[in-house]
């Protein structure tokens, strides 16, 4: 395929055209902020739907951008198929999280117009992360995203757990930002540049200086925190459990995707060999955190009784599987990461639509036992949740199986047999706790039914994601071709 490319660093107007989606989001968010400030909290629904519209328009703007690799703003901001893919995924994840939050906010009496706006600002940060081609852009994007997410975690300030989650996330996030910055400054100090394209020429793979390796390790630690990979996962279960549920739905979707894509771009950009070979310096780091994430995600989830906590460990495990694809360091590996992220987003959003519908008269419930007898009370919802859980466990012919298949295939092609075997074993263990939920839904003594019917938006999200998971194999081929094209764009 013919690939255009260009650098607009000297030309400000050309640089600005690259950032149209971001500009739309920033200006739109500020306009909605004004609307909210003058109309008060009664305008929350209007602001929320406005945010969704802005996110969708931004996604359209991203798709309308020309194909090829373009850099602007002093070569620090890149628009390539990889960034475009990531942005569309992130915008969709955030938009769905906004839609799913509406009913919850009202029932919890925390309906404030700032909620969708903070999600919009966080998405702006994620958008910057996905397009970062410079360590400064990387850092600013992460901070923009994180600061909004800290506030969202503590949004339900009347709940002690929510406040605790926000504070915990903030303190640990600040710590990880410190590690990240330390890594960035070491890399800058030992190479004299922060730009990824220049770094790629400066860094000689296989014989990096000790300073650069230190910088790389700290950078990896900071990014591993953002994707919640073991051993930097400690915040995840507590923050997932304490945050308001729609915020948890957001956390496990869009920010993870943005951070993982940024991770891939950092490793495959400046730190990849000239001829596209994998660099052992970072490969061993990724292999270790991948193995740890998969095993901790599988074993620690078994004892959980709170479904949000369980989803936290599930997400840690899935990040481990995705890192298997990253460790491969090939085009196939990156393509498998993209497929996995896409399917992971659909699965988590679907499951969270179910969790957000676990509502009784007295309020939201979060215990797994409360799902007992769901097959009798709400057979369709139970069926959809069954499909999603089987897919999370990786059963064929559902999408989750395809995701794991490509990741492990990439690992085997890169001759990482040990990693692939440990991954397979971990997914067998992981299947246990997913299937346990299915057993509770179908075979346990029925508990009191949930409030029915599900809200229209939840039903829409659940049905869409379930259908995507169920019939993934039908349109697997075009998606596979697309992700391969996108992955190739990263290695140009």
């Amino acid at each position, binding site marked *: 395929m013919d690939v255009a490319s260009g650098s607009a660093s000297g030309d400000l107007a050309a640089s600005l055209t690259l950032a149209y989606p971001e500009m739309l989001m920033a200006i739109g968010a500020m306009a909605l902020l004004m609307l909210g400030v003058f109309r008060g909290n009664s305008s929350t629904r209007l602001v929320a739907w406005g945010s969704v519209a802005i996110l969708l328009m931004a996604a359209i703007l991203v798709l309308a951008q020309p194909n090829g690799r373009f850099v602007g703003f002093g070569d620090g901001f890149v628009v390539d198929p990889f960034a475009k893919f990531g942005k569309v995924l992130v915008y969709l994840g955030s938009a769905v999280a906004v839609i799913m939050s509406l009913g919850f906010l009202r029932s919890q009496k925390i309906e404030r117009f700032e909620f969708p706006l903070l999600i919009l600002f966080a998405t702006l940060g994620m958008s910057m992360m996905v397009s970062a081609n410079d360590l400064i852009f990387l850092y*600013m994007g992460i901070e*923009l995203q994180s*600061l909004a997410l800290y506030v969202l975690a503590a949004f339900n300030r009347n709940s002690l757990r929510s406040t605790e989650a926000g504070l915990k996330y903030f303190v640990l996030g600040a710590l990880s930002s410190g590690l990240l910055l330390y890594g960035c400054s070491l890399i800058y100090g030992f190479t004299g540049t922060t730009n990824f394209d220049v770094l790629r020429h400066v860094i000689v793979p296989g014989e990096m200086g000790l300073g650069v390796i230190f910088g790389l390790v700290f950078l990896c630690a900071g990014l591993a925190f953002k994707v919640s990979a073991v051993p930097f996962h400690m915040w995840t279960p507590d923050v997932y459990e304490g945050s308001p549920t729609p915020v948890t739905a957001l956390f496990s979707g869009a920010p993870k995707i943005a951070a993982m894509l940024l991770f891939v771009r950092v490793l495959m950009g400046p730190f990849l060999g000239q001829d596209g070979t994998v660099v052992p310096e970072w490969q061993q780091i990724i292999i270790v955190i991948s193995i740890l994430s998969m095993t901790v995600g599988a074993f620690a989830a078994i004892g959980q009784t709170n479904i949000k906590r369980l989803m936290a460990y599930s997400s840690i495990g899935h990040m481990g599987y995705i890192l298997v694809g990253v460790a491969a360091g090939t085009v196939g590996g990156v393509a498998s990461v993209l497929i996995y992220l896409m399917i992971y987003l659909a699965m988590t959003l679907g499951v969270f639509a179910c969790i957000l519908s676990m509502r009784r008269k007295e309020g939201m419930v979060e215990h797994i036992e409360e799902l007992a007898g769901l097959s009798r009370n709400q057979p369709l919802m139970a069926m959809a949740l069954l499909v999603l859980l089987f897919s999370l466990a990786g059963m064929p012919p559902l999408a989750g199986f395809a995701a794991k298949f490509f990741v492990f295939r990439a690992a085997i092609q890169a001759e990482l047999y040990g990693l692939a075997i440990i991954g397979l074993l971990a997914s067998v263990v992981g299947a246990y706790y997913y299937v346990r939920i299915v057993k509770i839904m179908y075979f346990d003594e029925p508990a009191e039914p949930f409030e029915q019917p599900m809200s229209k938006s939840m039903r829409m999200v659940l049905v869409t994601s379930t259908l995507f998971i169920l019939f993934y194999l039908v349109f697997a081929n075009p998606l596979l071709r697309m992700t391969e094209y996108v992955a190739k764009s990263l290695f140009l």
Partner: protein
Amino acid sequence: MILQAIAFYVFSTVLVGAAFMVIAARNPVHSVLFLILAFFSAAGLFVLLGAEFIAMILVVVYVGAVAVLFLFVVMMLDIDFVELRRGFLQYLPTGVVIGLIILGELLLVAGIAIVTPETAGLAAHPIPSVATRTNTGALGDILYTNYIFLFQAAGIILLIAMIGAIVLTLRSREGVKKQNISDQVNRRREDGVEKVTVRPGQGI
């Protein structure tokens, strides 16, 4: 040339003297005022160096914001500074050691610049000569072109910090009586006065 030298020595002497008075003054308010004097003298030194932007920032940020904050803290909090200062000599050795370490680090930084002057050439954006471009202008040249995105993003981060602070702390408290002028003006006689017919011998 001679004028510059005079200005340099005046500013330096005042700076050192004021810095000493910051730790020597008995009254903490005087300490803060001497600190402000020290900032002004340092700003003067920066102007002499041709770094007018840093000089202005020093005045605006440190004098305008930080020193005023100090003053607020000193005046608002009831801290007995005389009591605090009692162990002054006790801390002197530690202070001297820390001061020497900082001095050594400064010498290292200056030494690198003197020994290998070519490192300055490695900068991504070399500093234009002061004769052709003021340094405020030179800063603006890259801040509003290459770094415009980051500059705006930093602004949005501050905006989020503001929104976050408001979201997490602003509460509309119940039962607080506020003055509402239109309510006061619209109040009618009937709202406040009730005419009660009292029957003889019964009371209300």
